[in-house]
């Protein structure tokens, strides 16, 4: 059987590549997507939306409002 020998620097380079590329990929996959996490979870979404609505209302009280037409008249 023929033994394939590879120099130490090649083995080290291969290991480094694995750490850099594979490790980075894992980190990406595990990165939390807060859009999805919040918008699919009513327990998180409802309080955030309430807060946003409150902020919007106080903003509207300070400034002239935008258009108020709502019903489709076509």
């Amino acid at each position: 059987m023929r033994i394939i020998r590879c120099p130490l620097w090649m083995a080290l380079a291969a290991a480094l590549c694995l750490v850099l590329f594979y490790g980075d990929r894992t980190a990406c996959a595990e990165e939390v997507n807060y859009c999805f996490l919040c918008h699919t979870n009513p327990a998180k979404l409802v309080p955030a939306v309430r807060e946003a609505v409150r902020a919007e209302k106080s903003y509207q009280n300070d400034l002239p409002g935008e258009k108020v037409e709502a019903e489709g008249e076509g």
Partner: protein
Amino acid sequence: MEQLAPHEKVYVDPQAILEDENHGDITCAECHGGNPADPDWVTAHDGVVKDPSFPDPSEVCGQCHEEESENFGTSLHANLAPYYKMIGARANPDGKVPAEVKGHMKNHCSACHSSCGQCHISRPTSVEGGLLDGHRFLKTPPQDTTCTACHGSRIQKEYYGKNPGIPPDVHRTKAYFRCEKCHSAEEMHGDGKDYANRYEVENGPKCLDCHKDIYGDKAENAEQHEIHQDLVSCQVCHSTPYKNCYSCHVGKDERGSYYFKAAGHPMDFKIGINPLQSDKRPETYVTVRHIPVDQGLFSFYERNALANFDALPTWKFATPHNIRRKTPQNESCNACHGNADLFLLEKDVKPEYLGANKNVIVSPDSIPEKIEE
């Protein structure tokens, strides 16, 4: 239409995304922007675009739906071209007025547009928006929360029979047709051509698309159909009273909110002279509906903005969505012939609108005479 609660409007059903093999791999931020890695929802929403498909869908929907995206700018739902063209034709042509009128329209009229997203993913913004089904991408927009959410006061009430005493459209009661049965995606999406109104759109619906043999010898009531062919539109015999709107005025209230107010919405049925007569629509007599335009429409902003008001009629070509096989005017020949009440006469037109409607008003001599039955 009942409004959604604020959190319902933005709730995303995880299954809607995970099960969608076409759109499921697209991340939120790829279309909407923002920072998905930021746990603070306030700063995470910096730069978020609510509807990334408007005004230009090419960077999002257009990545796959190329043809629809290319034609988007010519879809009447997106560009509202008829509004701008019809008001533009009436505008005072002097100086800066046409541009200013366009600006007023942006305040009051252009909010009623639609987009890819505002039919296939959410309710239109003009009716307060909100995701249709947890952000599912719906190939066919749901009728009640998209189409008739906007086309409510006239089309929906006519088609569903919600106007007191007026029955619903036979296409709904007999065949339960939904909007898309007649109004194809191609019609909605535009075809790259610049149309002045929806009746010009080449792939718009025509009664003859389905009722192909109605003018043939073997058609039901063949004699009547043959006699009236190209003389009256189908709606003249088969439509029932419909809503007419009068005298819209726009303005800004003390809080700075833009508003519009119309003077009234009476039900009526009127046959006028066809203002869009062409090879495609050769009929002399058609149903006409009063639209809410008025000389003083923009008087809040400036006097005489619509100095060219008489350029177009205020009673316009109409195709009401309340078709019935049997109607009061087709009960017998003389239910229509000699029945002046059905026709748009000078006395039916407000004095200030007589000039605009001179070409659609029926002269008493032109009313078909009673015939011996």
